[in-house]
């Protein structure tokens, strides 16, 4: 199965640097692994760790977090807060038994479409080597742990309130 395994990765990018880096990679027609699906936030500082848990619980094999380089934050210094939060997040993930390579933080400026593409390619290759995460399944075996994540609002049938 690992031979044909194509990981699915959710990417969270800031609006100003990293999402624009993805735009630039497109404009430059750089071909990179299609496994990362991006979600735009205004700033990497908006990244609530529960987004990461949610993505992993919903079946993602990895999560990419990307923002402006330290010192270049559109909101002055919020990416430093992302950095701090990421350090904590990694410890929590380790405690949950999730391999550290599955969740990573990448700085990509709006001029670094190629760097974002390279990082995505590298990440996809590494997660391919690791194999699927199957977190939901792991959690179900190890029951009880998942309830914390699945209690998030589900959006499949709703309408806005």
């Amino acid at each position, binding site marked *: 199965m690992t031979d044909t395994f194509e990981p699915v990765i959710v990417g969270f990018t800031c609006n100003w640097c990293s999402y624009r880096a993805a735009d630039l990679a497109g404009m430059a027609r750089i071909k990179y692994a299609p496994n990362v699906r991006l*979600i735009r936030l205004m700033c990497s500082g*908006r990244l609530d760790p529960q987004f990461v848990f949610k993505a992993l619980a919903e079946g993602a094999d990895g999560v990419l977090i990307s923002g402006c380089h330290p010192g270049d934050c559109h909101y002055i210094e*919020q990416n430093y807060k992302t950095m701090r*939060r990421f350090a904590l997040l990694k410890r929590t993930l380790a405690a949950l038994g999730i391999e550290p390579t599955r969740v990573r933080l990448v700085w990509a400026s709006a001029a670094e479409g190629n760097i974002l593409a390279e990082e995505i390619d590298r990440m996809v290759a590494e997660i391919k080597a690791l194999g699927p995460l199957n977190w939901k399944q792991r959690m179900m075996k190890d029951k009880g742990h998942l309830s914390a994540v699945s209690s998030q609002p589900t959006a499949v049938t709703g309408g806005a309130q």
Partner: protein
Amino acid sequence: MAEKIGVYVCHCGSNIAGVIDVVNLARWAEDTLPNVRVARDYKFMCSSLGQEMIEKDIKDLGLTRVVVAACSPHLHETTFRNACQRAGLNPFLFEMVSIREQVSWVTQDKAVAMDKARALVSAGVHRVLYHQPLEPIFVDINPNVLVVGGGIAGIQAALEIADQGSHVYLVEREPSIGGHMAQFDKTFPTLDCAACILTPKMFTAGHHPNITLLTWSEVEKVDGYVGNFTVQIRKKARKVDTTKCTGCGVCEDKCPKKVVDMVFEAGMGTRKAIYTPFPQAVPNYPVIDVENCIYFQRGTCKACEKFCPTGAIDFNQQDEMLTIQVGNVILATGYELFDARRIPQYGYGRLANVITNLEFERLSNTAGPTGGKIVLRDGVTTPQAVGIIHCVGSRDIKYNVDCSAICCMQSLKFAHLVKEKTGAKVYNFYIDIRTPGKTYDEFYRRILDEGIHFIRGKVAEVTDVPRFPGEEGKLIIQVEDTLAGRQLRVPVDMVILSAAMQPRADAKEVAKKFGISCSANGWFIERHPKLDPVATMTEGIFIAGVCQGPKDIPASVAQGAAAAARVLSLIGKKQVVLEPVRASINQEQCSGCRICNNLCPFNAITFIEDRAVSEINPALCQGCGTCVAACPSGAITGAHFTNQQIMAQIEGILWDVSNRHLVHEAEAVPA
């Protein structure tokens, strides 16, 4: 009421349709995704026909949400938001999905591209269900303006605004406006004297009915937001009552204490303990330098008070705090000179006749300490040979990586002045000559024709230790001439260091005070380096002149005027419209833990003591959402980026895999 979503897939000619089967994508969206009332594909969604298609569907089918899958939202989000608005749908009930930049342009395999496009469209549809109508925020603009820094950029900005009729508070740290330009001798490339072109502007600024000049003052605190800033200014005590002082100058004549003037004369001349920095100072009131005044240090003297004909000296005067209300701020805080002592091998501070560019300006200035005579430190000897070293502390990874932009032209000007005034041999030691301004290269050619020597190479050392005959009593410049490929020792009498412009030591503090960003080296960061060079990321705060990066006088003046134009256009609108993508705190839920308080770099969050809750000022909030992610009670909502919207987007984006592994598991179990 069930939401009705319209999904529109763009072909973008063949840009998208060449890779993704757009017809199938649309059909799939209509058949599979929740609440999709209609899904269509079209050649060019952004064309007027494409937009009209959406508008018609909103009206005819009663769509309540719209998703467009096309290019990047940075390109056409506004286009489609406007289309929604025209059809009577709140523009924030729209979501854009990028299937061109993120799929068709970067993916080769068509089947895989389709999978990714489906995931992104699904994410958009799931997200848009939770969108809420948002209304822009309107804020009134106070027409008063604060300009910080009275150099040429600040003066220009103040004059433009004041002429239009708005009131300007021009704050300057030093006793007089004028800035660095007032210290200069001639200006390149025209060689007209700096004072001749600057002082009329200074005078106009000083006497303009719409300008309140606050010299010898500093901004202490800034609160508020675009249109409504409250600024506290410390008016330092001059010890002179400006309502009585006539600027006659008797006090200065009578003051017995001479002090080396490190600021205006750059250490080349002296002033008194009570002084106006230069004769054309605006305002022309003196200030007492308390640290050097004999009365303040020893308790006796009062010569100035004794001789003042109007009784204006006030030894008991204290600092005064002013609070002003302004709608916009222009920062034009300028630069400071690189400290050439940091390059010990050039000998500045150790070898008397090694001087900086600013010192040379004073030396050459007719109003300067030598009356414009270019002489050595002894005050009489005319130099026979002068070396000018370019790029001192600039274009150097050890000090400042950036080019100071003006030093080439300034050094050429120095070469001309030295040659003209003394007939000395002049050597320029340069890495590259950079003369890109209008008529600048012509000036360079002119200097070349004047018989100035140009040696391409970075100077290794300036020394007074002779090794060869003819070097005794000279300063020897050791350099590799990289064009001739040989080592040179050039004996000269005077060395001028073209020291770099660098950010003011307190630039980062100032940036923090005004809530703007500063690059790692300390230049203020503009909103966009090309398209928005004088605005900052903080609405209502503009920058002009060298505080934004090294530049010459014409560019500083242009930026001063540009910043003024930006401010005037805001004032003209009377109201400013702010994007509603901002955070707000549900006070019922707020536990008052104050975790969010220190996270906001814009000081938008305040803690209300009596209710023990935090509150966000929507006009100050820039919408980054960091506080939203940090709130342990979930009391903060980031409009248009709510937890619910993002969680739904995650579910949507993983529509195909959320149950993938479970299915595999079920299949794997033997019957």
